[in-house]
């Protein structure tokens, strides 16, 4: 008995140490980013987040175009990828004929295994020309709308959003699929017992799994925020804040990858590291917000639906 509890204690301390290690690593990354970008933080202060000038020659740096580009492309990717990924997940988990299931799972997961440089090359040679044709075909009256303004270059926000959407789809869909699979069979049986159609039963399962699905979507968003190589190859790399889908823009990860090797002054280097710090902070913020969202959903779920669920328990279904 005593030996056992000692073992428990060791186990608890050991696993606890690993958990602390994760926290320490995150804190360490933050601390290093801050200390390595100190010159830039001191010189530009909060202005770094708000100004649009990025001039390595004059030593004047502002991150707004990159923040804008990262958020714009990631949100665009999220809007395109989420319905597709959830559609794939629902089909595979709920509707797919059994012999098709494994090949489909394999193929969607294969998408996740393709290196991002390959996506980038495919983007340059296939996606960008296709987007350019689309831009040329855009009718004139639409081009007056800021969302579609600008010359038809092919490279730009739309290409970046599309390529990111393709890249994050497998992540979102495979997590969403697992979440749907873990919905207890009683949920569906209950729904059918109440006379629900297949669509309504799936809706009930989706509702049950909604915190997990939000988690799956946020995982995709996190991937999109940090994606570098494929984005820089198709986004056009022009630091500007533009609402247009057709305009070439830039992202935080891309500017770091592009300019780090040739950054020749301390301030320039520190400004690039501070971009990394901003990206780190935004990623952290997105994660915290998604946690908060999931937490508030679980809470309201417990509050609102626990009494409602009680009668729909096993007895009611039976």
């Amino acid at each position: 008995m005593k030996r056992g509890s000692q073992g428990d204690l060791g186990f608890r301390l050991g696993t606890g140490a690993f958990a602390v290690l994760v926290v320490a690593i995150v804190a360490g990354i933050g601390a290093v980013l801050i200390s390595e970008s100190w010159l830039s933080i001191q010189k530009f202060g909060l202005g770094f987040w708000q100004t649009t000038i990025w001039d390595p020659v004059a030593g004047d740096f502002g991150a707004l175009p990159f923040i804008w580009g990262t958020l714009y492309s990631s949100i665009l990717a999220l809007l395109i990828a989420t319905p597709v990924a959830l559609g794939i997940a629902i089909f595979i988990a709920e509707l797919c004929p059994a012999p098709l299931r494994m090949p489909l799972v394999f193929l969607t997961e294969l998408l996740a295994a393709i290196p991002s440089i390959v996506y980038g090359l495919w983007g340059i040679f296939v996606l960008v020309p296709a987007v350019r044709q689309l831009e040329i075909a855009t009718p004139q009256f639409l081009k007056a709308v800021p969302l579609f303004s600008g010359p038809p270059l092919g490279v730009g926000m739309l290409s970046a959003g599309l390529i990111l959407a393709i890249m994050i789809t497998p992540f979102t869909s495979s997590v969403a699929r697992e979440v749907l699979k873990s919905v207890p069979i009683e949920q569906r049986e209950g729904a059918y017992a109440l006379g629900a159609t297949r669509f309504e039963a799936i809706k009930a399962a989706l509702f049950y799994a909604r915190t997990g699905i939000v988690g799956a979507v946020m995982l995709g968003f996190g991937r999109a925020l940090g994606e570098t190589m494929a984005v820089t190859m198709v986004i056009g790399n022009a630091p500007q804040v533009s609402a247009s889908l057709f305009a070439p823009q830039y992202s935080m990860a891309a500017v770091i990858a592009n300019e780090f090797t040739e950054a020749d002054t301390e301030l320039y280097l520190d400004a690039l590291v501070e971009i990394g710090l901003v990206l780190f902070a935004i990623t952290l913020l997105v994660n915290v917000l998604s946690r908060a969202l999931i937490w508030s959903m679980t809470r309201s779920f417990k509050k609102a639906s626990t009494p409602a669920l009680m009668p729909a328990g096993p007895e009611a279904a039976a």
Partner: protein
Amino acid sequence: MKRPSTLAAIACTLALGVGVAAQSIQINGAGATFPNPIYSKWFDEYGKKNPNVRINYQPIGSGGGIRQVTAQTVFFGATDGPMTEEQILAAPGKILHLPTVLGADVPVYNLPGVSGEIKFTGAVLADIYLGKITKWNDPALVKLNPTAKLPATDVTVVHRSDGSGTTYIFVDFLAKASPEWKKRVGVATSVMWPTGVGGKGNEGVAGLVQQVPGSIGYVELIYALQNKIAYGSVQNLAGEFVRATVQSVTAAAAGAAAKMPADFRVSITNAEGKGVYPISSFTWLLLYENPKDKAQSKAMVEFVKWALSDGQKFAAELGYAPLPAEVVKMELAALAKVRVS
């Protein structure tokens, strides 16, 4: 605070290295990506002849090369743009710039239906990259190319998105040709572009230019040749329109040799002389004049001597221009100053 322990670690590593391989010498270097193909070739060829000398080169970019050689984490650096006064002062010892080969940037374009090469001047290229010339049938371009039937299409400007020696050479030329460029944009490995889209690497720029009709970009000569992209001729100081070739690039260096400063930190864009291609540049090795490790120093000096003589014959096939004989002579004299014992 951190320094002593880092130094101790390096010292231990070095001591170990010497202990394990008493005979063979390993030299580490880092820097510019632009000369990486010929440097790899050189280190490989030289290694075959001298199996006891191993030279490792990391193509991490000119800026990175300057940083690492300054921090003495590598024995030698390499750069496409000479070190600034500020950077030289920051180094712990005197650093020697040694030109190894020459390279050139060419203006590439995509103009369907236009045959024959387009002629550019530095001022016109600067105005295009400043966003002041926006149509291919702009009077300034038509005046240079009266027979070319230039279309009324928009000019799409393509530049490098990554910091690069290729960019440094190009904007250095633009700054000499256009006072406005010098004032508004300046010269560096990456600049604040007034207009255009950025492609990553030479291949990114070449890819964009090939795809977008009406586009113009700049790439290293070898990329234009390999990808068979049309490139224009550029007017030199003597008023001639010259296409980039191995000869016209070497001529640029020969023209500059007479006025070569003792430290070799010279820009040869827009160089004087006949038959000179104006967007040419040296690329440099960075060596300490009095390095700590004399055995490495001795081996490195031997290698550089070989590269400046026998090594030069590999240049042309890889798209670089060999150094003119006068420059090699001056370098050998400078190399004698490097302490090897």
